[in-house]
C-alpha cells in the first residue's frame, strides 16, 4: 500500500530522514480523502447523500495543513526538527477547539463558532510534528453511540460497510482512521466514545486514566468522566500518540501530576507472569426494555464472547495466567448511574449556550432576553442535548437529588470498588488487568436504533464502568463476525496503567499478526 497505508511511526521516521516530505504525505492523504469521504457534514445537509462514502469530516482544513507541512519540511531541511509525529496526518474530533477553525461540537448552536484558542492535546500533537487535516464528525455534543445525532449531515459511516454506523460518539475519528483518511485521530471517551467506535471500525482506541490527558480546550460534556485519547491502527502508533498528549497541563487543574512513563519502551516486554482476569459480568448485559417495561438480561453473542476467550488463550500461551470468574457485581448498574450523573453534568455544561456571547442567536423577533434564550436554545439544540438538559435538571432538583443524584454517586463508588478489589495485589483475584468484550454487538445498521435513547445508551454497558471508576481501558481489533463486521476486545487496568495495557495489546497484536483476518481491508476504495 502507498503512503496512506503507512503506520504513524514509519511516516514520522521517513519524514525525519527526508525519505518523503510532509507535503507528499499530506497530498497522498488529501487525494485519498477526496476519493472516499464524499461531502462533508453540514447543517441542513441530506443524511442520505452518498451512502457509499465515509463522511468523516465536518471541516477539512486543507490550507492550514499545507502551511504546517511546508513549515515542517523547512525545519527538517534545516535540521531543526525531530518530533515523534513528524508529518503524521491526524484528525481531530470536532469537540476540541482549534484556533481560527470552526469548532462546532456537531451542533447548530456552535455551527458559527470559531475557536479563539487551541486545546492542549492538539497543541501537543502539532508541536510533535503532526499535521492536522481537519475536524471530524461526532454525535451532537458527543451525546450518542452512533454519530447519527450530529446536526451536520450526512453523519459518518462505517468504512467496513457503509450501511452500518461507525459507532460514537467519536465516529468520525474511528471512521477516518479505519478508512485510511488520517493515520491517527484524537477522540474523547465519556462512556465508551473512543472504545466503542474503535471496536465498530476495527481500529485501536484508548481511554486513558481520568486526568492523564488534559481537557483544556475540550467542549465539556460530563466533566467528571470526559477523557481525550488516541485512535490508531496499530499499538505502536497509539503508544506514540499517547506519549505526546499525556501529562500535566497547568491550564487544566484536573490533569494529573503523575509522571508519564515511556509507553513505547515498554511495548515488547511480553505478558509472562501477568494475571489476566475474565468476568462473567462482562459476558452478559442487562437492559431496560421500554416496550415491556421489564429489565432483560441477555448473554452476549457467542461469536463476540469467543474472541475474548481466544485472546485469553493466546495470552496464556505467552506466559500469562488467566483468572476466571472475577466477580464485578456492579457492572450492570453502570448505565443507570450514568443516566443520572452524565445528565446532571451535561445540563450544567449546556446552560452556557444562550445566544449572548457566542454561537447561535435566533433570527426571529423576540420580546425580551428570556424569549431570546428560549428561541435560540430551542432552535439550535438537537433532541439529544435537550433530553440531557431536562433529565439532568430533574434528577438533580432539590427534592430528587438524594434519591437519584447522590445515590448514583454512591453507586459510582461501588463500581470503583469492584475494580479495586479485582486489582488488589493482596486480594482474592490479584489480577493485573481485566479482559472483556468492548461492545455487546457489532456495528448496527444506520437508522436501526436511532431515537431510542435508552437502547442506544446500553451499547456502552461494557465500557462505562471504566469511566465511572476513572481507570484506563483500550479496545483492540480481534477479528470479524459472520457479517464481516469488526469485533473489538477491551482491556481494563488500574489507575495510570496505560503502559501495561499497551504492552498486553502489543503481545496480542504480535500473536495474531499472521492470521488471515489481519489481511482484511475495509470495503471502501483503498489504494493498493
Amino acid at each position, binding site marked *: 500500500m502507498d503512503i496512506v497505508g503507512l503506520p504513524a511511526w514509519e511516516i514520522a521516521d521517513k519524514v525525519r530522514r527526508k525519505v518523503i516530505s510532509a507535503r507528499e504525505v499530506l497530498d497522498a492523504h488529501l487525494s485519498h480523502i477526496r476519493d472516499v469521504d464524499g461531502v462533508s457534514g453540514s447543517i441542513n445537509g441530506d443524511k442520505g447523500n452518498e451512502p457509499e462514502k465515509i463522511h468523516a469530516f465536518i471541516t477539512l482544513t486543507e490550507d492550514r495543513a499545507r502551511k504546517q507541512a511546508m513549515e515542517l519540511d523547512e525545519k527538517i531541511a534545516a535540521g531543526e526538527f525531530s518530533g515523534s509525529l513528524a508529518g503524521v496526518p491526524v484528525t481531530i474530533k470536532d469537540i476540541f477547539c482549534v484556533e481560527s477553525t470552526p469548532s462546532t461540537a456537531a451542533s447548530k448552536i456552535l455551527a458559527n463558532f470559531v475557536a479563539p484558542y487551541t486545546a492542549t492535546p492538539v497543541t501537543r500533537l502539532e508541536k510533535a510534528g503532526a499535521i492536522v487535516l481537519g475536524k471530524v464528525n461526532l454525535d451532537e455534543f458527543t451525546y450518542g453511540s452512533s454519530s447519527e445525532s450530529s446536526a451536520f449531515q450526512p453523519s459518518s459511516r462505517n468504512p467496513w460497510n457503509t450501511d452500518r454506523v461507525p459507532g460514537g460518539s467519536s465516529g468520525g475519528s474511528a471512521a477516518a482512521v479505519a478508512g485510511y483518511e488520517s493515520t491517527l485521530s484524537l477522540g474523547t471517551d465519556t462512556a465508551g466514545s473512543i472504545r466503542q467506535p474503535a471496536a465498530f471500525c476495527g481500529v485501536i482506541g484508548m481511554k486513558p486514566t481520568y486526568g492523564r490527558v488534559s481537557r483544556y480546550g475540550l467542549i465539556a460534556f460530563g466533566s467528571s468522566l470526559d477523557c481525550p485519547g488516541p485512535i490508531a491502527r496499530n499499538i505502536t502508533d497509539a503508544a506514540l500518540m499517547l506519549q505526546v498528549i499525556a501529562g500535566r497541563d497547568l491550564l487544566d487543574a484536573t490533569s494529573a501530576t503523575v509522571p508519564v512513563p515511556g509507553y513505547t519502551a515498554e511495548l515488547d516486554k511480553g505478558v509472562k507472569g501477568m494475571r489476566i482476569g475474565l468476568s462473567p459480568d462482562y459476558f452478559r448485559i442487562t437492559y431496560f426494555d*421500554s416496550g415491556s417495561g421489564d429489565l432483560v438480561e441477555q448473554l452476549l453473542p457467542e461469536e463476540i464472547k469467543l474472541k475474548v476467550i481466544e485472546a485469553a488463550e493466546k495470552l496464556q500461551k505467552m506466559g500469562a495466567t488467566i483468572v476466571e470468574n472475577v466477580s464485578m457485581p456492579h457492572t450492570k448498574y453502570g448505565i443507570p448511574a450514568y443516566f*443520572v450523573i452524565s445528565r446532571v453534568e451535561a445540563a450544567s455544561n449546556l446552560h452556557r449556550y444562550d445566544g449572548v456571547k457566542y454561537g447561535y*442567536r435566533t433570527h426571529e423577533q423576540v420580546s425580551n432576553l428570556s424569549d431570546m434564550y428560549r428561541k435560540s436554545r430551542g432552535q439550535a439544540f438537537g433532541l439529544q442535548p435537550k433530553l440531557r438538559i431536562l433529565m439532568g*435538571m430533574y434528577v438533580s432538583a432539590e427534592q430528587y437529588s438524594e434519591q437519584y443524584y*447522590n445515590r448514583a454517586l454512591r453507586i459510582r463508588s461501588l463500581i470503583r470498588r469492584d475494580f479495586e478489589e479485582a486489582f488488589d495485589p493482596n486480594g482474592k483475584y490479584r489480577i493485573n488487568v481485566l479482559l472483556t468484550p468492548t461492545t455487546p454487538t457489532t456495528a448496527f445498521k444506520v437508522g436501526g436504533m436511532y431515537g431510542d435513547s435508552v437502547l442506544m445508551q446500553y451499547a456502552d454497558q461494557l465500557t462505562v464502568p471504566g469511566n465511572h471508576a476513572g481507570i484506563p481501558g483500550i479496545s483492540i481489533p480481534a477479528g470479524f463476525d459472520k457479517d464481516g463486521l469488526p469485533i473489538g476486545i477491551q482491556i481494563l487496568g488500574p489507575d*495510570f496503567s496505560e503502559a501495561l495495557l499497551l504492552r498486553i495489546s502489543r503481545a496480542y497484536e504480535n500473536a495474531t499478526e499472521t492470521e488471515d483476518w489481519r489481511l482484511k481491508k475495509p470495503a471502501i476504495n483503498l489504494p493498493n
Partner: protein
Amino acid sequence: MSDEITSDIFWHLVELAALELTTEEAEYLRKEMNNQLRSIHELAAIPIESEVPIASHGIPYNESNSASNRQDVWRPYKEAGKILSQAPETEEGYIVVPEIPHKDLD
C-alpha cells in the same frame, strides 16, 4: 405504567431550561425521560451501606496525583477582540442583548 414526569412537571422543567419546543419534540422528550427514569429506578434496589461515600469522580484526588489549587491571578487577555468578535451583536465593545425583563423574586 404511570409516568413519573407528568405533563405539568415536564413543562415546568422546559420553562426552567429556557427551551422552546415543538409539540412533536415535547412528546418525544417526555417519553424518553420517563423511559430513562424507569431504567434509573434499578438503582433504588441496590443495597448501599451507609459508609459508602459519594464519588465526585472515579479517581480520588490526593497530593500524589494532583496539584493543589493555585491562587487566582488576574491577567489581562491580549486578544479580547477575538473573543468579542464571536458575540452575535456588539456595540462599542459591549455585548448587546434584548430588553432584560423585570421579575420579582418570590
